[in-house]
């Protein structure tokens, strides 16, 4: 195409009569009087700003700033799985803080005479071997499970993502060392390790159990964090920040961490459910929480031998445990769907 045929900027054509979409476009360009290049530049500049706000062809309606987090939140709110799971979890958290809201009795007050009796008015879940109210114990048991689950997850996530993130970001021998140490922890069989470590502890609080779960749980989160930091680190925007002269701290905190944290959140949420199950397993085996702490694991353990003559003793704490674990895993699933960048 030889030069002279090039179409000129719009003023060469008759200006559109009236156009609500592009008001005063002709006027905006012509009066510069500076000739082709400036007019073209203006033209091009103007046209580029149009589609986002003023033009219906732009991406979406007149949108305000939408961060990826707020996008994820919008999507989560519309996801029924998330809504159900979070309502269940909210309920569990509330009753673990104020169990007396729905259970007026005392979980430690038992009447041996009512041992293994079925449901009766005021005691819908019946009684256990010791004659304690199963309903009250099930409600109070939530506290131990939720406390252990949340504390262990927070601990493992903080420790794991800090170590994994730093190892992934800096690489080198520290990274190799961390990977090997994590491998060693992976090699510890959970139940066996729990039997050995926790049997020497005499404390009746939840903290030894929390500590043990953190100890075994951090390598999994460290691996996830390391992997996602390495992925995030390779993005051009991290290079761009480096080319601007940004230091390691800024790159890590402002560019890498916010983009690497999503998988850690997802895995940690799912892990929370499994940590609750792990606590129940350890308590069942007698090395986790100990009486007088009320725990579903302990109750399940006590009920297991009586499963034939008093199945209700097992059913209610086990059901509560399953629902709790399921709720957290469902939450993790929903969060993953919302945070997974492949879906957007």
């Amino acid at each position, binding site marked *: *195409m*030889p030069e002279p*045929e090039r179409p000129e900027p719009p003023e*060469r*054509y*008759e200006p559109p009569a009236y156009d609500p979409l592009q008001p005063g476009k002709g006027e905006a360009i012509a009066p510069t009087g500076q000739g082709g*290049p400036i007019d*073209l*530049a203006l033209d*091009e*500049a*103007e046209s*580029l*700003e149009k*589609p*986002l*706000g003023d033009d219906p062809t732009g*991406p*979406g309606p007149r*949108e*305000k*700033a*939408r*961060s*990826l*987090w707020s996008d994820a939140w919008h999507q989560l709110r519309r996801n029924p799985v998330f809504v159900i799971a979070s309502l269940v979890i909210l309920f569990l958290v509330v009753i673990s803080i104020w169990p007396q809201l729905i259970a007026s009795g005392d979980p430690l007050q038992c009447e041996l005479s009512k041992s293994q009796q079925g449901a009766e008015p005021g005691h819908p879940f019946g009684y256990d071997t010791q004659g304690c109210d199963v309903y009250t114990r099930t409600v109070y048991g939530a506290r131990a499970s939720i406390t252990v689950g949340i504390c262990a997850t927070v601990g493992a996530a903080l420790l794991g993502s800090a170590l994994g993130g730093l190892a992934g970001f800096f690489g080198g021998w520290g990274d190799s060392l961390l990977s090997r140490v994590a491998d060693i922890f992976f090699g510890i069989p959970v139940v066996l390790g729990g039997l050995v470590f926790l049997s020497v502890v005499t404390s009746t609080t939840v903290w030894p159990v929390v500590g043990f779960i953190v100890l075994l749980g951090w390598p999994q989160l460290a691996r996830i964090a390391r992997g996602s930091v390495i992925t995030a680190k390779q*993005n*051009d*925007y991290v*290079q*761009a*920040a*480096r*080319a*601007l*002269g*940004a230091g390691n701290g*800024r790159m890590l905190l*402002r*560019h890498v961490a*916010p*983009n690497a944290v999503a998988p850690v959140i997802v895995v940690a949420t799912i892990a929370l459910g499994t940590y609750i199950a792990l606590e129940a397993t350890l308590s069942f085996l007698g090395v986790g929480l100990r009486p007088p702490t009320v725990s579903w694991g302990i109750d399940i353990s006590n009920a297991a031998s009586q499963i034939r003559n008093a199945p209700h003793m097992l059913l209610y704490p086990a059901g509560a445990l399953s629902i709790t674990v399921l709720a957290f895993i469902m939450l993790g699933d929903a969060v993953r769907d919302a945070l997974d960048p492949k879906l*957007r």
Partner: protein
Amino acid sequence: MPEPILEVRDLVKHYPLTQGILFRRQIGAVKAVDGVSFELRAGETLGIVGESGCGKSTVAKMLVNLERPTAGSIAYKGEDITKLSGRALKAVRRNIQMVFQDPYTSLNPRMTVGDIIGEPFDIHPEVAPKGDRRRKVQELLDVVGLNPEYINRYPHQFSGGQRQRIGIARGLALRPEIIVADEPVSALDVSVQAQVVNLLARLQSEFRLSYVFIAHDLSIVRHISDRVGVMYLGRVVEIGTDTQIYDHPTHPYTQALLSAVPVPDPLARAHRERIILTGDVPSPANPPSGCPFRTRCWKAEERCAKEVPLLAVPEAFRPEGAADPAADRAADRAADPAVEPAAGRTAHPAAHPSACHFAAEKRVVPGPGDLAAPPAPPPVRPDGPDVPGSPSKE
């Protein structure tokens, strides 16, 4: 002649290939860049072309100090920046900025546009006082043709072309003198590419920028560049003004590269002689001896396997009586047409550095005059009778 603002000498980047888990030992090296020299003058655009794997992106990364060269020097206004660190490096970085290829990965998706463009001011607080930054960011948005009101939006709310403008605004924030653009338009749609190319050209004259423009698209490089360097397997094989490279190429690789570029004109089909190369680019971990191009070259002889051809003006095109220029040193200077007439002789149009023992001119791009001119269309009749009165009936 303006002083070079950037002078690159014998730049080398080798990535070691290692083996073993505990005790890493080097078993070889990928020679990504293997002795590259050029200079960039204030206000000019140097285009660097080459196929994937030729090392052009690695050169870009070394220019902005994202990679440390294995050997060689990069002198910015006479000061070697490859050895700098700390405060001095930070100061230099202000003046050499980069525009990245992929507008989808070069902007942090968790930051607002205002934060992205304002980040340079956080890192270099001396450039703009705190209260002033928001206004500066809005100015920058305006300069690159985006609505300043979009300051609080996130990158994913923009299209590819707009994102690339944001990337350019970030590059401009510190008012650098040099911008290294690594394939800045190749990820964009055809109709948007021209917008961004025009923007870059406008910014160059507005801010007196010097560009190193790296691309694989030879047409765009010709459009924007004053001088062009052609890279193959980690080396510059030919360098010169755009006319010298495109209309008077002397290196066989350049000729093959140019002849392979499809010309958007079906009339050119009959007129073009295409040089179809055989084979693939050799691995940079194990480059051929002598001339790197000899394995695919139709001119290759024994000498090519033994001797590495230097990047120098080929003898045949040297002005008569000119002293044999100290090859690589003078090479770049010779590429400037302004130097040759100073020697008092008219330069041969093909007289520019070319790293080939058998350099010979071969015209492969048909000039505008070579093609039969298309029939001249009738002139426009504004408001003529051709305009359908009631288009709905068409």
